[in-house]
């Protein structure tokens, strides 16, 4: 069970990143739980300054860009 978190204020890029993450998890056929973190103080707890960002099991993997499905698959594997 992987916990995928998308950090961002809800702009189009964050939504795109969430989509890609879901697609990656589905392609790997793993169990996952996707959460969107939109509260700015919560984001700070991750130490993220540039959104959109992606965290897997609490570990920040991507900041400031929309990673593509292939990259996210490598991070999830």
């Amino acid at each position, binding site marked *: 069970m992987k916990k995928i978190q998308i950090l961002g204020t809800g*702009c*189009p890029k964050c939504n795109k990143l969430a989509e890609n993450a879901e697609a990656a998890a589905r392609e790997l056929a793993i169990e996952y739980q996707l959460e969107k973190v939109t509260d700015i*103080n919560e984001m700070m707890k991750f*130490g*993220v*300054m540039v959104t959109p960002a992606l965290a897997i099991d609490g570990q920040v993997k*991507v*900041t*400031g860009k929309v990673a593509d499905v292939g990259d996210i698959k490598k991070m999830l594997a």
Partner: protein
Amino acid sequence: MKIFGALATIFIVAYVLPLGNPKVQAAVQEAFRLLQWYARNHTLACVVPALFIAGAIVTFLSKDSVVRYLGPTANVPLAYAVASVAGCVLAVCSCSVLPMFAGIYSLGAGLGPATAFLYSGPGINVLAIFLSARVLGFEIGAGRFIGAVVFSVVIGLLMALVFRSGERAKAAAAAQMPEPEKPRRSIGKTALFLASMILFLVFSDWYNPGNVVVKTTDGRQFEAVTIHETKDAIRFQLEEDLGENRTGDKVTLRKSDLADVQERKTWVIRLHHIRWYLAGLCALAVFIMAWRWYERDEIREWMHNTWEFAKLLVPLLFGGVFVVGFVSMLLPEKQVAQYVGDNALGSNLVASVIGAFWYFATLTEIPITQALMKLGMHKGPVLALLLAGPALSLPNILVIRKVMGNAKTIVFIALVVVMSTIVGMLFGAIWG
């Protein structure tokens, strides 16, 4: 859901619009006229190239490099300098400004650079600056750009000074900086590439100020600036005294009374005549650089980002222009002029307070201020509105409050309002 709301709104407006009313008819016509003016004069030479530049900035300049200068170990003077111009690098998406502000404040370089960034971030971007210069006049565009950079540093420094004792301990979580990616090419190449594109915009946008020497049929000769031309008359602004008219007065002369109108060959006008050659040269340089220095996938990403911006901004801009054209015809002229028609303290204050709380969707501040100017708003309050406007709005004040608390938020708003008012007044006194 959002799309449904938009469609429902359009439907309801279309359903109930009283087209029989002559005032509404005039407003609809004005809305289309303004839209056409934007489409003909500002789209190809300004908006389209600016979108490509914005796309290139996002693709080829990494945000991480900015963040590194604003991190916890940042050199303070450098942090201010970077914060004040970082808005350019973030291009036009204001949604990333707030998280970065929060990050700089609680994890990075602290209150001063964070507020400097918060102020300049949304205000400085290629598209907004060029479009303001083109639509609202060169002085206002330049005033906006210089104002935004200078303000951000001053506001940041003042905030840091006011709250110097309260600087709290940095949040426990160290900012997680991604490992810097190896740059694919030297920064010089990227800079040259972006500079060529910006030069293209400067030249393609080059403005003909219309300085002319006029000879009339009764033998008089004077220097003036052409304001506009109709079928059988030309309206001039005088650059020297003519009869009882003084320099700066506007006069309309019938074409039948004019013997000759010669362009004065100032360097500005000379450049105007060859602007397309210069712009073409820049465009050629951009193509060659894109072809020689950049990988296919980078170019594809650039085009993708440009398209994303276009999807985001074009509907906002054109929709905004249309709505502004419509509404401005229904607003009584006197009411606007009554509040902000002169360069008094009150007018500038009203303009900056409204700017600070009102939410302007990206770029719509330009048609809005354009309409207000036509309704009699003075140039001073216009700049005050533009300086206070994009940086602050009610929704973003609420987020800022959550990050840095009431006292700092109130001081920040007060600084923005007071400084915009003062600078607006100075500007209005000089250029108005």
